[in-house]
């Protein structure tokens, strides 16, 4: 297949950038950028959870909120205020991160994760999960591993890595966002919209794992860099 619309090969990720500790007020924070999608994540907690009826006496509760800034989209301005899409992604982000977290030491408390995006070009929920993962590690939580996430796709029958905005919205790409936990070798997020056969999906998962390890390396490096000796 010829090169993709932005010149990448099928299995090439967009260039990535990651930085930890970008929001001083938060207990943990990180920025993750892939291509033209930039996500900021801040963690506040563990802290007391109100209303009380939502408290879990056995362990802390994770609460995620995903939001795109009104000027971050490709088209017209998006009116602020939660959309149904944002709510869905917030819940998905939470489910993607929960398997690695151990919040048993914080009963009746809540850990809030806020994800904001100033610029988007597809793969936003994935960038959000990566940023949130680093932010949780930065905040000192006990985690079995980091969670890495990206969007794989099928375009004209070919598997492509890291779907960009043009491929997602204009060309008819089957979009498959996934989140992978390397140490467990399991997926904590998986969605699909388009057409795919069972075999194609298995191939996407296999390729996705390999590419995720590249993202994993970037995330690890960003966490360590915060403490580099000057």
């Amino acid at each position, binding site marked *: 297949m010829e090169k993709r619309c932005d010149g990448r090969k099928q299995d090439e990720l967009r260039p990535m950038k990651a930085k930890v500790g970008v929001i001083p007020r938060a207990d943990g924070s990180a920025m993750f950028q892939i291509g033209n999608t930039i996500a900021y994540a801040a963690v506040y907690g*563990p802290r007391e959870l109100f209303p009380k009826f939502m408290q879990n006496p056995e362990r802390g509760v994770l609460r995620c909120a995903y939001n795109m800034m009104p000027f971050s989209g490709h088209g017209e301005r998006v009116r602020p205020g939660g959309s149904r899409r944002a709510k869905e992604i917030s819940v998905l982000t939470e489910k993607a991160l929960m398997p*690695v977290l151990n919040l048993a*030491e*914080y*009963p*009746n408390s809540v850990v809030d994760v806020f994800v904001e995006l100033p610029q988007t070009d597809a793969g936003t929920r994935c960038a959000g999960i990566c940023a949130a993962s680093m932010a949780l590690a*930065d905040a000192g939580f006990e*985690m079995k591993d*980091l969670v890495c996430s990206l969007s794989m796709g099928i375009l004209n029958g070919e598997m492509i890595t890291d779907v960009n905005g043009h491929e997602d919205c204009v060309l008819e790409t089957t979009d498959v966002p996934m989140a992978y936990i390397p140490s467990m070798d399991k997926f904590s997020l998986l969605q699909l919209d388009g057409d795919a056969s069972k075999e194609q999906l298995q191939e996407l998962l296999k390729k996705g794992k390999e590419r995720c390890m590249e993202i994993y390396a970037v995330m690890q490096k960003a966490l360590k860099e915060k403490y580099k000796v000057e």
Partner: protein
Amino acid sequence: MTEELKIKDREIAVPGEVLAEGLGYLPSKGIQRVNDKLVAQRLGMINVEGKVIKLVPLTGTYLPKVGDRIVAKVIDILMTGWRVDTRSPYSAVLSMKDATADFIQKGADLTQYFALGDYLVTRIINVTSQKLIDITMRGPGLRGLKGGRILEVNSNKVPRIIGKEGSMVMMIKHATGCNIIVGQNGWIWISGEPEKEMLTEKTLKMIEGHSHLSGLTDKVKEFLEKETGQKIDLAAIQPAPEETGTQEYQERPQFRERRPFNDRRQSFRR
């Protein structure tokens, strides 16, 4: 079985990172054995001591422990005591009987003792499984704080700030002449001349930022000597494993000044 250490001493580990392979190495808090690998479970600095791998957390919220001396802030006045913020997800209760050795009349105005927003030096005496916390102020060095400023530092850095047997904090006290009380929860009370308070704050922030580096004590000594223009004689500074000052004890009479019941008690005794 290959035994391999995958990380060096004083390196930073991230969650999920494999620190060692083989059963020869022993994990400690923050590290788990998964099959025959030792895996870091949180962000921290690695210390390799022989066959034991330790993980020193660099970040993370304070979790109240029995016996800890903390600086707490009054957030609510209750019927028989006060509720305080411990800088953790859990507030603590200071009951009247644990607040002072003096007798407090039932129905007394508790704000005469500690009002909303007051900072107190307290000790944790009980933590239940549901994280209900009891604290006391009866004990040496425990009291209410007036004036000064409160500095917030990462609670994980408190041991570094106190130093071995209190040596680091004593050095700073000596150099700046400030009164310093370090809470295990990362709230530090500083009181002195405004410029000296700022110097203390700067020094503490410096320790917080560089706690994972070696030679910190010397760096701090150099910094203080430069800023104050006075040499520091480490030998002259007495180590203080527990910051009990009889000076602080003597200041307790301020309770008596506020209490209106003193006279009544005197007559009762007679």
